[in-house]
């Protein structure tokens, strides 16, 4: 594709994003809840769209399409189980997070743990786990865009040396573009600008993917029924489910708990303006997730059905885009950019809130709210710089660190669930389970598949070990005095708002 088309499309998208962020800034007030939670005043629709755009990264249109193209219907199961559990977890936890946030002035998910377990160390350990797991994940979002930009153009750009690594200037342009956009949308007006730009990007993602699917089904197959007939006749092996059980469980387990363990999404349970807003957030997200997953997986089957042959499954989508009209390919290309940047800016904003509220504030409790916001903004810049450096090093280790992100965050699941549903759970149980579980799971990922006990994935073992430690240590120690009152207050609030 000609570079000028891509440059124009991205420039347009960038300008729209900046304009939206600028308008969001006009509504920006002062203080931590305002900057990091849009003062808990987001409408149901905006909340649902920012939840969707944050959850669904470039993985959907590149990774999931490739996974379906390569391994068939198992990829559908993996993603649909994620949606099923996200809906159920939202139904159970969203009212409780929302009430706790309002009653106890909670800004971040680790802060909820700090208040429930009455220990700043619980929140600090949870925050450190999030930072360690999510910075590589954020870097990979940038790398994905850099690779996509390189892959979509046939123009060769000069390369230069970066810490001894050879870096293409086009790859670097891709990374800087994403970094710049994320910095603008998160720094400009915090959650308000991130959520508004997210909403715009979510709409681009869904419209672009629906259009692409309709075009592909009619142009290459003659319609949906002909597509189904052809796939069943010629590619039936893709419709058979033949994933290895340990792989299926290992991949699905972290995603089943994603809504609780990933702070960039769980923080969104604090932001809606009302009960009605929360109902809309859950319902609209559910429908978005279902539609987007059906589309991406059908595109994966289509890529196989039209005879695309690539060694790397992640290339299936770029090759497919080479077979559709330029304008459509451009819109889809921008939608993939949008998916990556919306995830990245949300992760960066959430991590900065964790840094300022759960680390800086806990170390310096007397810091003013203005300084807290200021430190959050500095942390945003530091995280983006760290991600740019990581992304340019292109270390193999980053890929491993990124894939362990969801598995690594899973070690917080027992502590989070216990905080609201097991009053016997204790500070020691939370701390020891995360401190041992985190490094244990990370070590298994880094050691590699040859060291997985009995062939089961680190996420599986990590969850088992942390759950056992959490339960046993909790039973051997005493829960904090305030714990019962905290949980009672939350349940009382849930009842008062008519959500029990």
């Amino acid at each position: 594709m000609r570079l000028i088309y891509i440059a124009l499309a991205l420039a347009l998208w960038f300008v729209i994003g900046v304009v939206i962020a600028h308008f969001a800034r006009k509504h920006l007030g002062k203080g931590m809840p305002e900057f990091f939670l849009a003062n808990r005043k987001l409408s149901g629709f905006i909340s649902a769209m920012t939840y969707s755009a944050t959850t669904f990264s470039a993985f959907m249109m590149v990774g999931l399409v490739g996974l379906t193209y390569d391994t068939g219907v198992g990829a559908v199961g993996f993603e649909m189980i994620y949606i099923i559990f996200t809906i159920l977890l939202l139904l159970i936890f969203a009212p409780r997070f929302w009430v706790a946030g309002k009653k106890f002035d909670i800004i971040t998910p680790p802060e909820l743990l700090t208040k429930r377990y009455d220990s700043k160390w619980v929140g600090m350990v949870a925050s450190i786990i999030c930072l360690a797991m999510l910075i590589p994940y954020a870097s990979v979002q940038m790398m994905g865009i850099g690779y996509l930009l390189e892959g979509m153009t046939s123009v060769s750009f000069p390369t230069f040396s970066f810490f001894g690594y050879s870096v293409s200037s086009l790859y670097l342009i891709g990374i800087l573009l994403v970094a710049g956009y994320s910095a603008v949308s998160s720094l400009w007006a915090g959650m308000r600008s991130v959520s508004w730009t997210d909403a715009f990007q979510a709409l681009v993602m869904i419209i672009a993917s629906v259009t692409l699917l309709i075009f592909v089904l009619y142009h290459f197959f003659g319609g949906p029924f002909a597509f189904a007939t052809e796939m069943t006749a010629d590619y039936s092996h893709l419709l058979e489910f033949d994933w290895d059980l340990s792989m299926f469980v290992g991949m699905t387990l972290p995603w089943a708990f994603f809504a609780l363990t990933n702070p960039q999404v769980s923080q969104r349970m604090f932001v809606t303006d009302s009960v009605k807003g929360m109902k809309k957030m859950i319902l609209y997200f559910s429908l978005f997730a279902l539609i987007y997953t059906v589309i991406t997986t059908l595109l994966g089957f289509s890529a196989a059905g039209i005879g695309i042959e690539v060694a790397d499954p992640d290339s299936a989508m770029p090759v497919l885009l080479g077979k559709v009209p330029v304008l459509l390919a451009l819109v889809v290309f921008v939608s993939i950019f949008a998916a990556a940047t919306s995830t990245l800016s949300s992760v960066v904003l959430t991590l900065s809130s964790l840094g300022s509220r759960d680390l800086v504030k806990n170390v310096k409790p007397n810091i003013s709210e203005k300084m807290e916001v200021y430190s959050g903004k500095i942390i945003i810049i530091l995280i983006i710089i760290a991600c740019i450096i990581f992304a340019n090093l292109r270390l193999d280790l980053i890929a491993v660190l990124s894939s362990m992100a969801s598995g690594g965050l899973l070690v917080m699941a027992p502590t989070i669930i216990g905080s609201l549903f097991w009053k016997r759970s204790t500070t020691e149980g939370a701390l020891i389970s995360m401190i041992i579980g985190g490094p244990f799971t990370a070590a298994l990922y880094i050691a590699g598949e040859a060291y997985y006990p009995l062939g089961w994935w680190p996420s599986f073992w990590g969850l088992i070990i942390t759950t056992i430690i959490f339960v046993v240590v909790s039973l051997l120690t005493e829960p904090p005095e305030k714990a019962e009152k905290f949980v009672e207050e939350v349940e009382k609030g849930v009842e008062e708002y008519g959500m029990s």
Partner: protein
Amino acid sequence: MHITMKTKTLWIIAVFMAVISVVIPYTILGDIPRFRASYLFWTALTILTILIGYLHIRDWGRSR
């Protein structure tokens, strides 16, 4: 701590979904090379969950 029957039911549904979303495709549907097998099963299960969600939240906010 008072957890309502509705919340308890959601936990039970979650366990039930976890079991059937893995067991059925591995035992009954996995070998059938049709869209109406595993693909439809997981998609239908997701639609069912959305319906459960809708019924669950329908009355939220009414008692206030």
